[in-house]
């Protein structure tokens, strides 16, 4: 496994992109190599209600400037503290953590990256990586309604972006698994990150169509390095740590 670091990141920018999502750009003195799908554990200070670090997936990486983007949903006091950081502030990270997605993939067919909610975050880094290696990337991103749609330009620069909204206010109506792209689906692999019910539905479709599928899980986590055994998920081989055996699992490993 790649070496892990505990590093202070300096906030370069931190801006709201929707009512509840913000994008934080951090710069580092030196940046370790980060694989698509890996994450960081962020230290939260000055917040009596928060004790543990918060696992946040890596949204985008710019090795040339030693910068990392995090796309974060404000859900509680920990992410609220992160949202309040201003340019020049310092945030402490332990990273890169986790296995990451399988990036070795046939270029004969496109890949489909299916995301929902904050789960779209790691798909940008993954898509960029795959596209740079010559793979055709399609994103399929699900939102509740038009107003919830996150900024897509970075995704569009990497590949096709297909959208579903539950109310049909943008893109196709329904859940991601209702999208017409599935009609004659023929992908080298499907990658998915988002709410568990969404990923389970994606896995069901992938299985039906016999397409290899990887999902990235998000469990409550303490150490982030496989020591505390708190973040386990049930697999065909027993409990595995989402932080180190995952967060990415092949759907075949899971009793889904």
């Amino acid at each position, binding site marked *: 496994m790649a*070496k*892990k*670091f*505990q590093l202070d990141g300096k906030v370069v920018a931190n801006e709201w992109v929707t009512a509840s999502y913000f994008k934080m750009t951090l710069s580092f003195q030196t940046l370790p190599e980060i694989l698509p799908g890996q994450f960081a554990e962020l*230290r939260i200070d000055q917040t*009596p*209600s*928060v*004790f*543990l*670090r918060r696992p946040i997936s890596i949204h985008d990486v710019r090795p040339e400037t030693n910068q990392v983007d995090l796309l974060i949903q404000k859900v509680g006091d920990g992410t609220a503290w992160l949202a309040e950081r201003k340019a020049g502030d310092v945030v402490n990270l*332990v990273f890169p953590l986790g296995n990451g997605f399988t990036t070795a993939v046939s270029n004969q067919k496109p890949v489909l990256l299916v995301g929902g909610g904050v789960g779209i975050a790691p798909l940008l880094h993954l898509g960029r990586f795959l596209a740079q290696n010559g793979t055709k990337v399609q994103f399929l991103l699900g939102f509740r309604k038009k107003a919830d749609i996150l900024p897509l330009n970075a995704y569009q620069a990497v590949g096709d972006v297909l959208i579903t909204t539950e109310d049909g206010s943008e893109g196709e109506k329904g859940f991601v698994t209702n999208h017409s792209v599935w009609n004659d689906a023929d992908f080298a692999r499907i990658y998915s990150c988002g709410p568990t019910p969404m990923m389970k539905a994606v896995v069901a479709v992938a299985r039906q169509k016999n397409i290899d599928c990887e999902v990235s899980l998000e*469990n*409550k*986590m*303490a*150490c*982030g*390095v*496989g*020591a*505390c*055994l*708190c*973040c*386990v*998920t*049930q697999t065909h081989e*027993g*409990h595995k740590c989402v932080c*180190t055996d995952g967060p990415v699992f092949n759907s075949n490993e899971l009793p889904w």
Partner: protein
Amino acid sequence: MVDLSVKIGDLSLRNPVMTASGTFGYGTEFEDFVNFSRMGGIIVKGTTIRHREGNAYPRLAEVNGGMLNAVGLQNKGVDYFIEHIYPTVKNYDTNVIVNVSGATLEDYVACTEKINDLDKIPAIELNISCPNVKQGGMAFGTSCTAAAEVVRAVRKAYDKTLIVKLSPNVTDIAEIARAVEAEGADSVSLINTLMGMAINAETRKPVLSTITGGMSGPCVKPIALRMVWQVAKAVNIPVVGLGGIMNATDAIEFFLAGASAIEIGTANFIDPSVTMKVVDGIEDYLRRHKLESLNQIIGQLEV
């Protein structure tokens, strides 16, 4: 030059800073963040005679100043440890101590016997205090008779340093400490986690799959300090203190209360290199107070 070395029974520690079982894996998980050769010891995961899957997810609840866990002694069993983990950890330049857990007297003894054969494991920590499994030993740790019984049996099976980890979920921890001392324990370590509970008011459900779990973190430090103080006065064997130690100042408080060594647990989750900082901080403290040796503060609370 400040002397940080301490002895726990026959076990020599280069410094008093160890890591608590279940919070530091087998050490490898933290090798990017610490230097083993600057640690007193690593107490590896709770190990049982057989493979244990542990409890269902969720196993974690965050609470004010700490956390509850309900891992339930997940481990691959002592044979797996001997075959797959021991070949690596035996080469660490620090004391590797195995935390031995069990559900029955026979299990404790069988597991201990196997560990006894491992040359490079100089000590075990006998866990009679896990609150997270139906038969995780807490029943042994909450009665003097049962605690004495298990220590007596394990003592016969174990030649090296025997540390007994005590439960704080008792009326009189000093009494339990005396009972295990009488059966030949070389040391007691305390406190294991306090049994707590977290509820999600909105869903009206417990946060943990097991309803209750073990509380750790700075929120338990005052209780841990009190118990170390009580036990250190009650026994003549060295006491290993743990419970919410986040920094060197916390560690010093435990030494003053009577601990000869300490374990750092939950703090590893917040700062994976915290052990290094605590070692440095203890050294700084002693130097600043013009002391030559850690032994000069152990139990030296001025009352």
